[in-house]
C-alpha cells in the first residue's frame, strides 16, 4: 500500500531525523578522536611527519604499567566496594523503612556536589585532624594516633567509592525493587532461610542488572579526574598522567594524545565486554 515515491520520502525523513545525531557524533566524537589520533602520531610540536615514539616511550617506561594498573585498581576497587555496599543498603531501603525517601536522596548527594569540592571536603574529613580520625582515636580501642587515609591507595578507593556509589546503588535498588516478592516467598516456603534466599535467588536475579551498571560505572571511574588530581598525591591514574603532559611548558600535546589513545583503546575493550554482558539473556 506504499504510494509511489514514498520510499524515497521515507529515506529522506529518516536522514533528516538522524542528522542532529550524526552531526553531534561527528563534531563531538569522531572529529576530536581523529585530531587526537593524528596528534599522537606526530613528532612533538610538529605538524608533519609520522612517529610511534610517544607510544613506545610511554609503554617502555616501567611507570606506564604502574599507571595503568593503578587506574584499574582504583576503578575496579570503587565498583566492587559500591556493589558490596549497595546490596545491604538496597535490601534495607526496599522494606520502605521510615524515612526511606530521605536515605534515597542522601544516597545521590555525591552526584550533586562538584567533584572538586567533594574531593577537598573528603581530604578534610579523613585528614589526620579530620572528624573521622578524631572519632577513631576517641572511640575505637587501640587506635591512638591518626590513621593515614589521604593520599593512600585505599583512601583513594574510598573517595572513588563515595563518588561512584550512587550509580551502582540506584541500579541495585531498582533491580531489587523489580523482583516479584512472590519469588522470594516461594523460596522461603520451600525451606530456604534468609541467607539461602539471598544467595540462591536474590543475588542471581539482580546480578545481570548489577553487572550492566558496574561496567558503565567502571568506565566512568576509569576516566575519573578531579578526585585523583586533588586527592591522589603521588598516585596518578591515566587521566592525571595525561593532564600532566599538558601541564609542562611547552605542553607535550603529542605525548598526552598518545596516552589518551591508549586510554580510549582500553575503554573500547571494556565497552565490548559490556555489550557482551548485555547480550546475555537477562531473565
Amino acid at each position, binding site marked *: 500500500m506504499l504510494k509511489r515515491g514514498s520510499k524515497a520520502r521515507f529515506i529522506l525523513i529518516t536522514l533528516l531525523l538522524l542528522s542532529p545525531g550524526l552531526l553531534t557524533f561527528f563534531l563531538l566524537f569522531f572529529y576530536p578522536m581523529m585530531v587526537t589520533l593524528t596528534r599522537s602520531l606526530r613528532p612533538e610540536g610538529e605538524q608533519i611527519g609520522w612517529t610511534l615514539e610517544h607510544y613506545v616511550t610511554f609503554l617502555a617506561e616501567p611507570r606506564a604499567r604502574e599507571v595503568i594498573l593503578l587506574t584499574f585498581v582504583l576503578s575496579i576497587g570503587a565498583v566492587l566496594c559500591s556493589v558490596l555496599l549497595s546490596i545491604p543498603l538496597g535490601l534495607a531501603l526496599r522494606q520502605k523503612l521510615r524515612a526511606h525517601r530521605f536515605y534515597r536522596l542522601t544516597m545521590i548527594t555525591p552526584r550533586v556536589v562538584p567533584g572538586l569540592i567533594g574531593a577537598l571536603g573528603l581530604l578534610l574529613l579523613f585528614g589526620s585532624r579530620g572528624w573521622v580520625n578524631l572519632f577513631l582515636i576517641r572511640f575505637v580501642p587501640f587506635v591512638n594516633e591518626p590513621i593515614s587515609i589521604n593520599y593512600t591507595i585505599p583512601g583513594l578507593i574510598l573517595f572513588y567509592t563515595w563518588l561512584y556509589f550512587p550509580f551502582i546503588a540506584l541500579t541495585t535498588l531498582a533491580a531489587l525493587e523489580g523482583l*516479584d516478592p512472590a519469588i522470594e516467598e516461594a523460596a522461603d*516456603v520451600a525451606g530456604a532461610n534468609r541467607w539461602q534466599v539471598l544467595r*540462591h535467588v536474590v543475588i542471581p536475579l539482580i546480578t545481570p542488572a548489577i553487572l550492566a551498571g558496574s561496567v558503565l560505572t567502571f568506565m566512568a571511574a576509569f576516566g575519573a579526574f578531579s578526585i585523583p588530581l586533588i586527592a591522589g598525591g603521588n598516585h596518578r591514574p591515566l587521566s592525571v598522567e595525561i593532564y600532566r603532559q599538558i601541564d609542562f611548558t611547552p605542553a607535550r600535546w603529542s605525548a598526552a594524545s598518545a596516552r589518551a589513545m591508549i586510554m580510549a583503546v582500553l575503554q573500547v575493550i571494556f565497552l565490548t565486554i559490556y555489550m557482551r554482558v548485555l547480550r546475555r539473556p537477562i531473565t
Partner: protein
Amino acid sequence: MPDYMIELRDVTKRYGDLVANDNVTLQIRRGELMTLLGPSGCGKTTALRCITGHNIPDEGRVFIDGEDVTDVPTYKRELGMVFQSFALFPHMTVFGNVEFPLMIRRMNKAERREWVMDALRMIRMEEYEDHYPRQISGGQQQRVGLARALVYRPKVLLLDEPLSNLDAKLREEMRFEIRDLIDRLGITAVYVTHDQAEALALSDRVAVRNAGHIEQVGMPDEIYDLPQTRFVADFIGLSEFLAGTLSAVHTEERTATVAVDGLEIHVPATPEMAPGRKVLFFIRPNDIELLPASQESGINVFVGVVEKKTYLGDRSDYRVRVSEGLELRVQTDGKVRFEEGENVKVHLPIPHCRVIVE
C-alpha cells in the same frame, strides 16, 4: 480431641486501621481440601499468609500438625505453596526449580534427581526439564509450581488462586488435575479462590469469607443448598431475595408459609420458625419453573407476565412480573420458550425455597 492439620485460633491481622482478618477461627482436618472462598480483598491471602508465616497475626495462634507455629519462621514450617503468579525462579530450569527444595535440604545429588523426575512425571513435564520458565506456557509453569511445592512431600499444600492467571478452558482442566494430585498424595490442602464454581468443584469443605471474617464453613452441597446467611446465598450463585413475614407454620406437613408482597409462599419448615417473624426468602432463578398459562394452579404456583427475556445460549433468562411490586428472575434451559408479554405461571418448588430467619 479432633485431629486437625491446621488450626487458626482467634487470629486477628490488621494493616493499620484495616482489619483483614477479624478473630478468625478455622480448623482444617488431616487430608482434606479446604477452600477459602470470598470476593477479592476479603482477606483470604492474609489468612493463608498467617499459615505460611509471611504474616504474623496480631492476636491469636496458628497450629500446624498440633504444634503452635505462630513464632516459627516460614522456612521451618515444612509447607508447599503454589502462587497465582507462578513465582518460578526465572534463572533456573524446570529441573532446577523443582530441585530447589531438595537442594536446600541437602539431599544427595542422585536421590535428588530421582525425586525431581518423579515429581516431573507426576505432572507430565519430564521432557521439559531443561526449559526455562519463560520458555513454557502458563499452564505448564503452574504445573511446575505444583511439582516444586510437592516434591519434598510437605505436610500441607497451600494454593493461592493458582488458576486465576490461566484462560477459562485450561482452568477447568487443571482444576481436575489438582484435585487428582491431591487425592493421590492424600495431602492436606488449603485452596484460596474467588471463583465459586472452582470452590464447589474441588473442595471437601468450603469456608465462605466476607470482609475479614468467615460466614459459613461446610461441604460444597451444604454451602450451595443451605446457605445460612444472605451473603453466602448471594455469593454462591445467583439468588432472588424477598423480604417477608412468616404467616403460619404447618407442623404435620413440615412446611411454613411466608407472606411476601401479597403472595403466600410455602417453604420447608425449620425449628426456629415461629409465626410473625421477619424472614428473608430466597430461591435460585434456575430452580424456578416457568409454565404455560394453561397449567393448573397449585401450591406455590403464581400467575405472571414475561417482562423481559434474554437469550443466553444454553439457558434463557426471564424477568416475570408476578404482582404489582414483585418481579422474579427465572432461568430455564432452552427447551420451553416464552415471549415477552406472554402470560405464564411460575412454580417455586418447595424444596428449593429457602428462608433465613432474621
